[in-house]
């Protein structure tokens, strides 16, 4: 994938510098366009806040803050610094950060050590690890929500 080297979180020289990616005409991002295939991985960085509805069809890693709704066909990872105040629907969810809201997954929900979840979780498979904080209901008898039954 031509964009692969640039897709994984690159190390930009410094966030404040204006000579970051786009200034050179032949820079890696510009002319190639996007060849996204599923599993490319979308990252919401630690200093970004999204307020509203987020939907998509690829894997997502949240290191920042999302308020509202997430509807994803793909694997959602909430990183240790991530804060999600939203209702979440995804194919599978891995929580290492904070979630306030209901989580509904077509395949599995994993709540790792150090995670804090306040809300209801619904999935055929739910894993809560030692050291996780969880408050809410667990529902493992779930009819797949429309559109999330696609196998990946």
């Amino acid at each position, binding site marked *: 994938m031509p964009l692969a080297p640039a*897709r994984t*979180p*690159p*190390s*930009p020289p410094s*966030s*404040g510098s*204006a000579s*970051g*990616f*786009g*200034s050179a005409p032949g820079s890696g*991002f*510009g*002319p190639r*366009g*996007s060849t*996204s295939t*599923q599993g*490319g*991985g*979308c*990252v*919401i*960085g*630690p*200093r*970004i*806040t*999204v*307020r*509203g*509805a*987020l*939907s*998509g*069809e*690829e894997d*997502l890693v949240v*290191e*920042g803050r999302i308020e*509202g709704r997430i509807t994803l066909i793909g694997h959602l990872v909430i990183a240790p610094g991530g804060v999600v105040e939203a209702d979440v629907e995804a194919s599978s969810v891995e929580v290492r950060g904070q979630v306030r809201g209901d989580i509904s997954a077509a395949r599995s929900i994993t709540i790792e050590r150090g995670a804090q979840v306040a809300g209801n979780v619904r999935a055929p498979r739910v894993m809560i690890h030692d050291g996780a904080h969880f408050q809410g209901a667990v529902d493992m008898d779930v009819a797949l929500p429309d559109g999330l039954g696609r196998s990946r």
Partner: protein
Amino acid sequence: MANTVIGSTIVIDGEITGDEDLVVQGTVKGRVSLRENIFVEESGVLEANVETATITIHGRVTGDVHASERAELKSNCRVVGDIRAPRVLIADGASFKGSVDMDA
């Protein structure tokens, strides 16, 4: 420090605020307010009013752009909206409809 990449199948309807670089390969509708650099790639669609330090557009932007440092419209981009920035670069092949105000 991670870079934020909004993948090509992602649609965000709402508001994005933050303090780091943003790469848009998908669709963002609403408002974007950052203090760093925004790169709208060729597959990116931004239907939003944008406030940022710099913006580099290869894709489509519909909305007003206010860049405190620089706004760059690359070839094959399509921009409809007003641009306010102290430095504006419009490359050959860019498609732009709107006004430019460099007194920002």
